[in-house]
């Protein structure tokens, strides 16, 4: 889809009338399109008026139930970084963008997952998470922000990857930056290397060069993590040589 065509999707987006690949493509475009952001904000305020005009009477019992429920629901931590500014900064030049990325990966290696978490936040910035995805995101953010998070970085597939492991949580997150897209019809698949065996840890989104993935399953004594190129949908066992291998940081 061309930029002009993407640009015209502001209305459909504000009405939640996009899905699948088109939604993802538009959100990628939106992150760097100030005019689109402005228009989406205005359209969202407009649909807000449609919503207000639909105001209905609520039953008192609903109020009691909701106020009861929130006493048992934990709030999410606030976002860590001034993302707007980071994104604008990154847009000012490719050199600067590369520097920012390199710096955040280096910082991730030095300080555990904090910088990787920010990087993840930035990657997620434009996307909206559904309830289930939210829980997933919390576990993911929990690993990155864990006091015992340790990380290891490597160059791979035209970009960089950082593996963040929290021993106390027993989970791992893989953060990629600027990786080359896999060939058409293929995906990057993550694996835990367990002794001589490879255990699938899920797929990466083939449409995003920078992302954070909560690896499926517990780290559970795995000594390393591998990434292979597999047919769309993934494989039970690796069918190609790994494009990258990272040792699990001890």
């Amino acid at each position, binding site marked *: 889809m061309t930029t002009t065509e993407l640009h015209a999707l502001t*209305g459909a987006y504000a009405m*939640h009338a996009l899905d699948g690949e088109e939604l993802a493509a538009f959100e990628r475009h939106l992150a760097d399109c100030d005019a689109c952001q402005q228009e989406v904000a205005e359209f*969202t305020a407009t649909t807000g008026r*449609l919503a*207000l005009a639909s105001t209905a009477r*609520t039953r*008192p019992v609903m109020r009691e139930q909701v*106020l009861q429920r929130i*006493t048992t629901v934990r709030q*999410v931590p606030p976002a860590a970084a001034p993302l707007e500014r980071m994104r604008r900064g990154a847009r000012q030049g490719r050199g600067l963008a590369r520097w920012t990325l390199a710096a955040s990966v280096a910082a991730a290696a030095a300080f555990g997952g904090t910088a990787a978490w920010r990087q993840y936040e930035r990657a997620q910035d434009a996307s909206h998470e559904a309830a289930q995805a939210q829980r997933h995101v919390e576990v993911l953010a929990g690993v990155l922000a864990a006091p015992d998070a340790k990380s290891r970085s490597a160059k791979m597939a035209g970009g960089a990857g950082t593996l963040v492991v929290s021993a106390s949580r027993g989970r791992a997150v893989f953060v990629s930056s600027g990786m080359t897209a896999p060939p058409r019809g293929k995906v990057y698949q993550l694996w835990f290397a367990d002794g001589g065996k490879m255990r699938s840890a899920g797929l990466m989104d083939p449409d995003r060069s920078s992302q954070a993935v909560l690896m499926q399953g517990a780290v559970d004594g795995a000594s390393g993590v591998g990434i292979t190129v597999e047919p769309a949908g993934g494989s039970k066992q690796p069918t190609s040589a790994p494009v990258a291998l990272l040792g699990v940081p001890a």
Partner: protein
Amino acid sequence: MKEPVFIGSNPTAKPDLQQLVREVALGNQEAFAAVYDAVAGSVLGVARAVLRDQAQSEEVAQEVLVEVWRTAPRYRPERGTAINWILTLAHRRAVDRVRSVEAAVARDTKAALLEHQPAYDEVTEQVETRLEQEQVRRCLRTLTELQRQSVTLAYYRGLTYREVAEALALPLGTVKTRLRDGLIRLRDCLGVTA
């Protein structure tokens, strides 16, 4: 119980709701109760406009309100007002629900959709806040027929724009443009700024 009263001036700009949400973000349950009183009617209203079913609408409205509590620390005022944040969440959740529920029952047949066509009239019949309702009704009338149908199917029925195109037997590009033009006209008619 207190009904939300939004009469006259642009209700989406109410500043005290912003302040309340900031306090909710700090874990203040009393502030949340005040937010609830200000927005619950609209949250339920938008859910019911899309879902039609009272029980499901209440479920979705409750989920949305709990989500407001849970994610208030991530609310960013520079992205838009608190009320728009909440109502956007409500609409998205209602749309998600209607898509998952109706996926099984072949909602995309034209006959089924046309049966539901009076969406907008049904919706506005139920409206309590008459001034807001009257203004929206008047502005919806300024749209062309195609714009109004596209906006109605997408916003009140939760159709994707591809489904709108199928339902109205129009090319995708036409629906894309109608949705955008329709919103531009509504925005200007309602005097929305962001």
